[in-house]
């Protein structure tokens, strides 16, 4: 129940909720991760990435019917990331091999989709997106990142009706395209 409140708040991009989840489990996570051969700075980095993945999944509605505790879910993601890190450093090969990582992923049924590198096209798009006004950023983020329908956007951003929201979105896309092709 408590977790549901937090998940809802995370979806709404509530900073206090993010902070409470982050700080609430940090000590335990560090304690948990210390048994692996990683230094504390890396552990914290991994923990932050795990929180980001958790946040992403909350936004995508993947935590709406969460069967485990939020904390357990977070630790599973973190554990997966630790294994991945160790594998990159080739520490785990001799010990547990690839199967441990794969098993962990299928056991826990979560997806960790952190965007690391952008393609060339995407980099251009990124520069253009950053130079958009706040209004455009808001509407595009709701539509593409949070998966809102036009109706939901109309309500959330207080547009007078669907058509207004829709043409605003089209204008933003058009500006984006102009920005890309004119640079």
């Amino acid at each position, binding site marked *: *129940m*408590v977790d549901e409140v937090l998940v809802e708040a995370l979806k709404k991009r509530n900073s206090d909720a993010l902070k409470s989840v982050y700080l609430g489990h940090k000590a335990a996570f560090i*304690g948990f991760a210390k048994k692996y051969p990683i230094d504390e700075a890396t552990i914290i980095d991994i923990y932050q990435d795990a*929180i980001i993945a958790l946040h992403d999944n909350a936004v995508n509605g993947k935590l709406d019917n969460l069967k485990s505790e939020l*904390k357990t879910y977070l*630790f599973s993601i973190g554990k997966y990331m630790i294994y991945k890190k160790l594998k990159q450093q080739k520490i785990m090969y001799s010990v547990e091999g690839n199967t441990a990582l794969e098993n962990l992923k299928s056991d826990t049924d979560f997806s960790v989709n952190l965007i690391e590198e952008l393609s060339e096209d995407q980099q251009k798009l990124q520069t253009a*997106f950053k130079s958009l006004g706040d209004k455009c950023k808001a509407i595009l983020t709701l539509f593409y990142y949070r998966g809102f329908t036009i109706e939901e956007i109309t309500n959330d951003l207080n547009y007078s009706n669907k058509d207004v929201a829709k043409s605003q979105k089209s204008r933003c896309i058009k500006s984006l395209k102009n920005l890309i092709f004119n640079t």
Partner: protein
Amino acid sequence: MTKDKLIEHYFSKTLSAEAQREFDHLLATDLKFKQSFKFQEDLKTVIKKEEQTQIKQELRSFETSNKTFSKKYLKWFVAACVIVLLSLPFWQFGQPKLDNEALFAANFEPYENVVHPIVRGETSSSLRTKAFISYEAKDYGQALNYFDALLIESDNATISFYKANVLLQLNRYKEAIEIFEDNTELSQKLKSQQQWYLALAYIRSNNTTKATVLLNTVIESGNYKKRAAEQLLKQLD
């Protein structure tokens, strides 16, 4: 449905099965559609990356500037507690079972740490040591975090037993009951202890029938809390 509409439904995850087929077909055959879709898919990736970068910065700022955490956290904690209270079945408030609550309070005390002796000043900092240091220091919230972390590493009946004790102390007796009931692998040495605590948890949740059965078992085994169990049994009648 127009092509734009199809893409719109794709992003809001509201494509019907039929529309999905149309979407797939266009993606495979219509170059312009494919380009338009790819542009928007790229945009989605870019925005996601932006969000992730922003959150990362936010998390880093918690690391550097975090001294005012407790107040804000408290707000959430209180909000969460209120909701938990509201979600409890009404009858618990409608018919105050003060007697059972009082009986529980009079008899309950978290089981002492007999499994992981703490040597004061010891520098070792295994998770298990930290857990029991918090437990002995009555920092039950912290102890719970450590026990949880230990249990994520591996199932352990003894740790589960102590975790349930912490939950009882934190008044989360329903969760404690679930753990005690499932904790069948516990070593013989702690069996009676677990029955005693489960009995107390049942009393706390007004399940006197189950509590009576367990108290009788505790009395029969006779190696732990026999007299206290006998007394408690009389008080329950």
